[in-house]
């Protein structure tokens, strides 16, 4: 049985941990609110640009061969892909990062089984640490972008991949990240960006005019670029909001656990104290009784 002093130290240390986790929860709540706002503002644009590019791609189905833009072309054989994985830079957010890593490992296996080569681009310290630890080779590792999403930097990262795609070095770009659903749930997304998919296949002979007529490829190309850049940026925002909601939950659970632990320890502390009081009393009474006989 632990002594009173030991128990007291233990209770204090758990209480201190509880204070820290509570503070971290509050910080996450505040940060989540900001991340959520940024996400909601950009959600509409992300949805629309996806809709527009998909619609254009659908209309171009019939003239695909005449258009020299690889993003809209049919790619028959996939040899090499870019796998962009987004995780948080910081831990202490439950299974948030690990879920993404697990999905990535599954995807890597899946692609390897199909004999597809992979270039791994990792954004976020946690995944970088993991892949370095298990010795999986990374093509590019970027830190510090997930905690402060920035359009220019996001565009820079994805544009390198896009250029390689245009130069036929890679055949697809896949983004894996853990996104925000609501304050309590996050969802893993696996997005295959290129070539731009046609959502509902119809064989309508639709006609699409692009202005300026003589330079329509530039217009479409710049739209595709914008689409890819924006999806990357949106991914970072989504991931950040997911991270904060996951951390908020994890810290809330930790605070509750600490509370429960303090309760248990206090019970034990009181028991031990009671015991020692009783023992002392017995000792005194026996001593008195012993002295009476003399």
């Amino acid at each position, binding site marked *: 049985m632990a002594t009173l002093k030991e128990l007291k130290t233990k209770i204090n240390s758990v209480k201190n941990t509880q204070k820290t986790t509570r503070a971290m929860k509050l910080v996450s709540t505040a940060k989540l609110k900001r991340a959520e706002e940024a996400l909601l*503002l950009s959600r509409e*644009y992300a949805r*629309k640009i996806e809709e*527009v590019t998909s619609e254009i791609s659908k209309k171009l189905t019939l003239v695909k061969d005449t258009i020299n833009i690889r993003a809209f072309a049919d790619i028959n054989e996939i040899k090499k892909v870019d796998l962009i994985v987004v995780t948080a830079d910081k831990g202490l957010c439950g299974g948030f990062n690990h879920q993404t890593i697990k999905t990535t490992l599954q995807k890597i296996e899946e692609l390897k089984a199909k004999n597809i080569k992979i270039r791994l681009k990792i954004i976020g310290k946690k995944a970088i640490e993991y892949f370095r630890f298990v010795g999986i080779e990374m093509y590019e590792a970027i830190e510090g972008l997930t905690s402060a999403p920035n359009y220019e930097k996001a565009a820079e990262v994805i544009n390198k991949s896009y250029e390689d795609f245009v130069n036929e070095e890679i055949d697809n770009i896949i983004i894996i990240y853990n996104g925000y659903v609501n304050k309590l749930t996050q969802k893993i997304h696996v997005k295959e960006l290129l070539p731009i998919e046609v959502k509902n296949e119809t064989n309508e002979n639709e*006609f699409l005019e*692009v*202005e300026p007529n003589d330079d329509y490829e530039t217009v479409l190309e710049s739209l595709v670029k*914008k689409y890819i850049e924006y999806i990357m940026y949106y991914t970072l925002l989504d991931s950040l909001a997911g991270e904060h909601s996951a951390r908020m939950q994890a810290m809330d659970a930790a605070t509750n656990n600490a509370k429960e632990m303090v309760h248990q320890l206090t019970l034990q502390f009181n028991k031990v104290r009671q015991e020692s009081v009783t023992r002392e009393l017995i000792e005194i009474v026996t001593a008195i009784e012993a002295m009476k006989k003399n």
Partner: protein
Amino acid sequence: MKISIVTPFGKIYEGEIKEATFPGSEGEFGVLEGHSPLVTNLKPGVITIRKNDNKEEVIAVNWGYVEVTPDHINVLAEGAVPVSGTSESEIAQAIEKAKQLIKDASDSDALVATVASKIESAARNI
């Protein structure tokens, strides 16, 4: 027909309209219901929307893309400022913001002046 105007900072306008005029990179063009599918760039200028009740609304944009289909229009603008408001000071503020947006986006003084005069004349009709 439906129109939706979005920017990276949120939705600017969405609703049923009769007619819309855009500052296309190849010149101004109007869209009515049943327009053939079209994709083009926008240059700095104003989008004029005529709603079903014939009321007009003016929105300044710096640049972006517009996709037209027979039954709906999607505008993906980089920045957009609707010239509207419920009070005079609000409208004045919106006009200032709209002018600034165009000024930042364009280096041609003539264009800035044309757009500014358009914004002001539209504001008088509110």
